[in-house]
């Protein structure tokens, strides 16, 4: 087992013929992901790289290929529309790499029983099984650590530390840096707790909002597996948006100190720097 994606994932790529979509589709196929279809309106009937059939609509693609997950690389202006379309076609897992505000999308997805990962996220990878999104496959190793993060390259840094010290990963999930996201820390922690192939979890948060505090409460009450946590932005000034739309300290709320304290109270081992991840995990395993 792993979380959300595995060998059974039949992936559809929305925006497969675009610059980013085509590049990452090749990477995902190279990694072993079952990419069964692509969608670009107006390009239905083409075959991407001679292997992946392209359709005009998600509904067509699902009917013909039984795709059960979708990854979205379309431009920001049409990303919300792409998410609606995937949900309408019955896709259960929608991973949106593109950034964008999704206020109106979330209640709709909830009613359709679809899970959205992102937006504005690097996607997820279950090493040696399936990769959906843009996380570089070569830094991951199969293993028993679950990783969930609001960030992209910081996740790679920490996964790299794990892999080089022999700590492989069951699944790595980038949930995205926007203020509104489809899949929260809690959804992922809960899935890792239930996953028989995950022994411990690394949670990587950042300044802004209260998602990490809520996740800490969940860890305290709902998890038996050890959790190690990191918060980026200890030196970030209040009131400034640190790149990610969600990474902003408003007033005195959403600071790194507040989140790290919540982690400690909940029994989460708090990393002071990325390199602490390996020793802290070794203590807890």
């Amino acid at each position, binding site marked *: 087992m792993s979380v959300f994606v595995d060998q059974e994932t039949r992936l559809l790529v929305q925006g497969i013929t675009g610059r980013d979509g085509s590049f990452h589709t090749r990477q995902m196929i190279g990694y072993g992901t079952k990419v069964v279809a692509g969608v670009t309106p107006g390009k239905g009937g083409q075959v991407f790289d001679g292997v992946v059939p392209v359709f005009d609509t998600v509904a067509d693609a699902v009917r013909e290929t039984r795709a059960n997950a979708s990854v979205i690389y379309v431009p*920001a*202006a049409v990303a919300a529309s792409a998410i609606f379309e995937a949900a309408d076609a019955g896709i259960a897992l929608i991973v949106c790499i593109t*950034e*964008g*505000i999704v*206020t*109106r999308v*979330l*209640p*709709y997805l909830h009613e359709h029983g679809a899970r959205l990962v992102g937006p*504005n996220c*690097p996607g997820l990878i279950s090493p040696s099984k399936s990769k959906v999104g*843009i*996380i*570089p496959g070569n*830094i991951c190793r199969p293993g028993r650590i679950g990783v969930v*993060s*609001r*960030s*992209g*390259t*910081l*996740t*790679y*840094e920490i996964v*790299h530390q794990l892999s080089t010290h022999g700590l492989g990963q069951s699944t790595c999930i980038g949930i995205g*840096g926007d*203020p*509104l996201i489809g899949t929260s820390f809690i959804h992922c922690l809960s899935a890792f707790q239930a996953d028989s192939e995950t022994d411990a979890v690394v949670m*990587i948060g*950042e*300044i802004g*909002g*209260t*998602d990490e505090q*809520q996740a800490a409460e969940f860890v305290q009450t709902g998890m038996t597996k050890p959790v190690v946590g*990191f918060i*980026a*932005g*200890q*030196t*970030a*000034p209040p*009131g*400034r*948006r*640190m*790149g*990610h*739309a*969600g*990474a902003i300290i408003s*007033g005195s709320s959403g600071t*790194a100190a507040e989140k790290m304290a919540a982690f400690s109270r909940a029994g989460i081992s708090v990393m*002071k*720097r*990325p*390199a602490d991840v390996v020793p802290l995990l070794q203590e807890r395993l």
Partner: protein
Amino acid sequence: MATTPAEARASADRLGGKVVVKAQVHAGGRGKAGGVKLAQTAAEAEAHAKAILGMTIKGLTVHKVLIAPAAEIASESYVGIIVDRASQRPVVMVSPAGGIDIEAVAGQTPEKIHRLAIDPRYGLLPHQALTLGFALYEDVKQARAAADIMQKLYVAVYAVGASLAEINPLVTTPDGTVQALDAKIAIDDNELERRPDIAALRDPTAEAPEEVAAREAGLTFIKLDGTVGCCVNGAGLAMATMDLVKYYGGEPANFLDIGGSSNPQKVVDALRIITADPSVRSILFNIFGGITRCDDVANGIVQATQQFPLTVPLVIRLTGTNEALAIHILTQAGFSALTDMDEAVKQAVAKARAEGRAA
């Protein structure tokens, strides 16, 4: 709008003399900072404008003042709409305790703030707006007037993809009229990329010049007070790098994210912006190549040093995609590169300290 005291006086004359002079900066708390003043005469408006123009509010210099007719105020309320992260919905907030201290109201007497989460599919419904209106006013006419303003504000928020909009104060005048006296709207940078018509309203003079230059170069840059210049790919890693600089006893000079698909030109622009800061004593590159190719970054560093001299030491850490090629490019050009983040940060902090002593 006036940019000089004389213009302020002329506007005040046109409005009959009794006016409010308001600093126009992208920050809250203007009133508390002395950026909003009531003038009884045009001459007084001129004097206030003279004092306010050029003053600094939350680090931003005031270049413009708004001259508005002074209203007789009987009561002050607050109306705001935010996109709430916890409920994942827009939330309308109103408070009968409006005016300049709404942040204090939120902190000290949260019961005076009424909140309502909105289903984004239906918007702010008339009866919901009216209920909020009655939270502000007992009089049904005033409650209806406030409800009407709230519904219009909600429509405006959605039309422009704003993450926050507020009317503060929403006032009643002695004759009972409900009037929005001042308003603020915040639109996220991501949304601006989609809305060039709104992006055109951006006033670059209200922002730090190096941050404007960075944005135009496709970089995210925030100036800080330290001495270690940072150039990183990815926002999370950039924050973690700043934190690590502090961990090893240094102070970061900036937040800088060169973004995902870097090309060498972005690196040249980044170095130009970092080196323009006279307090920078060393520059740290921290690149984890995923989509970002390390060789692109290496080429950018080499190109930059051919275009302008680097007067402070450079510490380069890169690992990931095309790492070996990047190290080859840098070595050929006389640079050395590290692959460990902690080691690189330690060196950058030590070099900043040594340069600081030499200077």
